[in-house]
């Protein structure tokens, strides 16, 4: 690569109270390259991209576009300079069409949208980049992969020459991810620079021309494709050697602890979400559920944890049916729950570590004493969790919203495994965590498995399901499409099942 870089970041420093998120970071993007930005959570990737897209203003350092220094004071300025970003959580208006979403808020006349012309433009753009999507379809009808394409088209329509994709494959099936990366290559061929923020090493190897690795807010390396293998990259990223894949060693299995029999349930909208789902999980077994989000995973987790009523069927824990939809009954029966949205339901953002530590234990001694909560026992419990799981909290009295994702998940794990649960329902337990955090989660689940818990692992990350579970089931459209023993699992086949193909 040579010539003036399309975009260059020099010595970017961004400080937050008590934290230096970027500490003199350099990044150079050439036209026509796919550039992976690799780093653990909290390494400063997102901060750096927020600086580049004008959301944050750097405390030090400069941004050069086409060799000229620029200063972005609002996201709009970055967009005008040809920098576009596709966030992990899409920003689309679901009730509008694809074309309307693409045109929305950008050089649109105040009154008349110019529908016909807009639809044609969007169709042409989609055609040029080989991103199939119907411009007149309404966004809520689209799959996640298609919605992502709309987001990319939106950025391209706004003249993006630099496109930043934040963890783009996190929400996709393997097939969808392949399609996405083909489109990414196509963009590069057409002279765009594409930044892929990720912590998936195989993705980096598959798609990136160059790789910039961040650790603790600093550059720790820039490599071109093929220069470093996954192991070397992982080492750079975390600064230590990590065990990449641990195939699950067999654990002695006991009685059937969790039995789901003929379960059917509805979604929040009242539509059928689970249809006649049956499976058993034995003590010491991890039953993995793979599948793309929105195929009944959430509802499955909720019927087992008592949060959602069953239309038909039964959920039994250690031979006893869970009565009604009662989270309390599930908790009392020994069902622990590591929910999808840590800070939304698993933890209370505005309350302290202490208050969060007792969310399950506050009814029982030693914390709950009659109608009272023993503050000292609560604090002792919190301190025990903090110490045992190496959670770094500002103080047990500070609201947990100030904690990082990894610390939040450790606190949650500490609480949910404290009482030797019979059943653990873990939903996307490592999502958004860095390599170290992921390792901790896996280790803890493994310990619980060995201690005789029956674990229901629901994850979109197929690698994770395969690394931890035996057997693996695939949920598609509310049905359990297949239960496959670990040693007969085939990634391609599972991917097809997830996409709804019949084997």
């Amino acid at each position, binding site marked *: 690569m040579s010539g003036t870089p399309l975009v260059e970041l020099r010595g970017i420093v961004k400080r937050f109270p008590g934290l230096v998120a970027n500490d003199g970071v350099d990044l150079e993007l050439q036209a026509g390259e796919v550039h992976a930005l690799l780093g653990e959570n909290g390494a400063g990737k997102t901060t750096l991209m927020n600086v580049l897209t004008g959301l944050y203003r750097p405390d030090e350092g400069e941004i050069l576009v086409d060799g000229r220094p620029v200063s972005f004071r*609002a996201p*709009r300025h970055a967009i005008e300079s040809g920098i576009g970003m596709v966030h992990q959580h899409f920003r689309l208006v679901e009730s509008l069409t694809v074309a309307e979403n693409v045109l929305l808020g950008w050089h649109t006349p105040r009154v008349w949208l110019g529908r016909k012309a807009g639809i044609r433009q969007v169709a042409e753009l989609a055609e040029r980049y080989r991103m199939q999507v119907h411009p007149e379809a309404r966004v809520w009808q689209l799959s996640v992969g298609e919605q992502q394409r709309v987001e990319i088209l939106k950025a391209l329509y706004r003249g993006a020459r630099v496109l930043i994709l934040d963890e783009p494959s996190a929400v996709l099936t393997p097939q969808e991810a392949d399609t996405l990366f083909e489109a990414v290559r196509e963009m590069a061929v057409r002279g765009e620079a594409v930044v892929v923020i990720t912590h998936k090493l195989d993705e980096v190897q598959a798609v990136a021309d160059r790789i910039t690795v961040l650790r603790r807010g600093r550059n720790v390396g820039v490599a071109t494709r093929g220069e470093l293998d996954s192991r070397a990259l992982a080492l750079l990223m975390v600064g230590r050697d990590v065990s990449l894949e641990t195939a699950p060693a067999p654990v002695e299995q006991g009685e059937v602890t969790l039995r789901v029999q003929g379960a059917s349930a509805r979604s929040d909208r009242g539509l059928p979400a689970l249809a006649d789902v049956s499976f058993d999980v034995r003590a010491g077994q991890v039953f993995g559920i793979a599948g793309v989000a929105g195929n009944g995973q959430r509802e499955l987790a909720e019927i087992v944890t008592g949060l959602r009523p069953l239309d038909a069927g039964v959920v039994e824990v250690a031979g006893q049916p869970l009565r009604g939809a009662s989270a*309390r009954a599930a908790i009392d029966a020994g069902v622990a729950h590591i929910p999808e949205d840590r800070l*939304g339901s*698993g933890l209370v953002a505005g*309350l302290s570590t202490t208050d969060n530590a007792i969310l399950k234990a506050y009814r029982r001694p030693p914390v709950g004493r009659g*109608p*009272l*909560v023993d503050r000292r026992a609560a604090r002792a419990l919190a301190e025990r969790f903090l110490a045992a799981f190496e959670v770094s909290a500002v103080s047990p009295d500070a609201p947990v919203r100030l904690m990082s994702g990894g610390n939040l998940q450790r606190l949650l794990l500490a609480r949910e495994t404290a009482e030797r649960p019979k059943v653990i329902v873990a939903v996307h337990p490592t999502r958004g965590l860095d390599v170290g955090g992921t390792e901790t989660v896996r280790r803890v689940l493994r310990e619980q498995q060995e201690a005789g818990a029956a674990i229901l692992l629901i994850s979109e990350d197929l690698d994770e399901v395969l690394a931890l579970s035996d057997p693996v089931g695939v949920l598609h459209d509310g049905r359990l499409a297949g239960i496959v023993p670990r040693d007969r699992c085939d990634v391609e086949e599972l991917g097809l099942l997830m996409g709804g193909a019949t084997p």
Partner: protein
Amino acid sequence: MRRIGPIVVEPRPAASRLASVLARLAAIALALGLGALILEAGGYSARDSYRTMWDAAFANRDALAETLVAATPLIFTGLAVAFAARMLLWNIGAEGQLFLGAAAASWLAFSFPDAPRGLLLPAMVVAGAMGGAAWAAGPGVLRATLGVSEIVTTLMLNFVAILLVDYLVHGPWRDPDSSGFPLSKPFSPSAILPSFGDTRLHAGFLIALGAAVVVWALLRSTRFGYEVRVIGESQPAARYAGMPLRRNIVVVMLVSGGLAGIAGMSEVSGIVFRIQPDISAGFGYTGIIVATLGRFSAPGVVVAAVLFGALQVGGYALQTTEVPPSIVQVLQGAILFIAVGAEMLARYRVRWRPRREPAAVAEETT
């Protein structure tokens, strides 16, 4: 982030205790400054006026007693609003609950005028609480079962409660010797709260402080209070932990109504010694402001109520000088307005960031 022209309002990245204290002090200074401008514009000496207000509210024992008398009902109603707000319930009906509490306590006073004081007064407190709780029960149950907005139902019931007391003092409870005024007959001595020395400060103030301690302890150290805090912060988390949401909505509304009801008891038994239509100067509504200023915490409510009481007492005193009541009301309004505004300043920061392109739409940020 919100944009008003070139001004950008955004949450402070980290809530800083020092900043919030400074913002409040600055607000008081700013409010007094604005008040001074208003006074001087009207041709009155700001210095003398503030002196008058200060003397009336704090200068001596009697002044302080009057301030605390004014603060007493506001502590109750402020606690009522604050407690419900901790669970994101908005009790706009403290006014009506106060009237119902007053009516229930009065009924007891008229029914057992000769009961011993040590028995009658506690019973009246309980009756006041039950009256207020009963008035809040309907909105609580409707909210818990059908999701009916408690803001609307509690507000509407205020008018019903006030008219109910109107009916009672015009009809069944009217004092035959009142020469036509809508008043009940006076309470017997055993239905009257003891007062401190020769001041008007009565035991209701102590009950109010006690209620604040109870609310504080309830939230801090009981399972129920813990559930209230969790539900108020995150309903999904409360459901996740298996907390009974509906039951807690009803119970919180009962407690909130009960607190407001005791305000009614304390006013009729400590100040008016009978029941009549003007027992409340909008205490239920003022309680909303007191709760907000007190950041919905029990100690905060007590401080806010005392400051509010002082402002009222000072305002009355100023009206006896040549300053017209309307200026006094503008002054009070300005001070409150700025104080509430400062709440926002403590949590948000305002920055001057003009746009390069005036017609541009700011990208939504998270």
